């Protein structure tokens, strides 16, 4: 999924084909099979998504069943919510089905260097009355961590491409595809200050 090339100068060039969707990504579906958000597989049968996505599909409690399908396309399957951290908006789902691949790995958010290039791929709800887009890629740049309300550690990135539906998607470091976080919310700026913050 990540292509590495070494040019004549010995420098490594890393690219992600725009049309490729990682096999470890999937969609959280509501009872009408409308996608509400994104999930990713950390190891076979173990999936991660955002608590508020589960709440929107009526599965916002431990033990709830939730309908899922692969982002790349394929049959839907069921999962069961096994862990929820409401403060950090992270939930774990145990799935009966396993996706083709799992993420390359996790890395500590605090260790990521400012301005690191990032990639988010996920469900996309686009304001287009005549068309639907199953997924989109959002390229971003790391902007470090912050502390909200004196107790909650959050990471922040800057991107213009994030759309609704990407909640629960992994924030991946472009150079090695390691996951440094998960999409939860964006900041809406009216006056232009802090715009494009996720």
């Amino acid at each position, binding site marked *: 999924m990540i292509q590495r090339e070494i040019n004549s100068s010995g420098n490594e060039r890393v690219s992600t084909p725009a049309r490729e969707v990682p096999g470890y990504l999937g969609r959280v579906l509501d009872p009408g099979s409308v996608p509400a958000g994104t999930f990713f597989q950390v190891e076979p049968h173990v999936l991660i998504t955002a608590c508020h996505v589960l709440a929107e599909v009526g599965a916002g409690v431990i033990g709830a069943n939730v309908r899922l399908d692969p982002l790349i396309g394929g049959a839907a399957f069921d999962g069961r919510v096994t862990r929820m951290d409401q403060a950090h908006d992270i939930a774990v789902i145990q799935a009966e089905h396993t996706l083709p691949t799992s993420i390359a790995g996790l890395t500590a958010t605090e260790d990521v260097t400012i301005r690191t290039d990032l990639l988010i791929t996920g469900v996309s709800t686009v304001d287009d009355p005549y068309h639907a887009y199953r997924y989109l890629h959002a390229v971003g740049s790391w902007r470090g961590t912050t502390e909200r309300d004196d107790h909650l550690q959050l990471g922040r990135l800057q991107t213009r491409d994030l759309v609704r*539906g990407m909640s629960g998607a992994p924030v991946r470091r472009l150079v090695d595809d390691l996951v440094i976080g998960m999409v939860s919310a964006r900041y809406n700026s009216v006056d232009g200050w802090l715009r494009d913050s996720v």
Partner: protein
Amino acid sequence: MAGQRIPIRVGDIELLVETVPVAGSEPTSGLDAARDKVVDAYERAQVAIVEVAASTADTIRKLAARTVRPDKLEVEFGLKFSAQGNVIVAGVSGEATLVVRLSYDTQSGKRPSAHAASQASSQPRALDQPSSDERSDDSARDQQLRE
């Protein structure tokens, strides 16, 4: 920054309601929860209109108590909705968010006494129905208080 256009059903008609963006964090899930919030906001807006009208009537009563009851009082304001379901009082005329017009008929020279005003305020006239004296626009003095 443009707002979303959210379809809501009012009676038998589906309307596209344009929302205004407000600053703050917003979850990025895909379902259109904003629709339900705007429907709620629309219902609360109707309550807001009644409350503003009641407050305006109260203002007339207070003015009457000071023998400066206007012949006509107009309040002009706009309401907008956010995708989060807030009802926002918004400007409709120039830069003003709330326009208040007090009109006095100087030609008739009438200035109700406190007693007369008190009687008048017990049966307030509809704000959108000017008296015959008020139809002579060139004799009226409009005072606009802009907040």
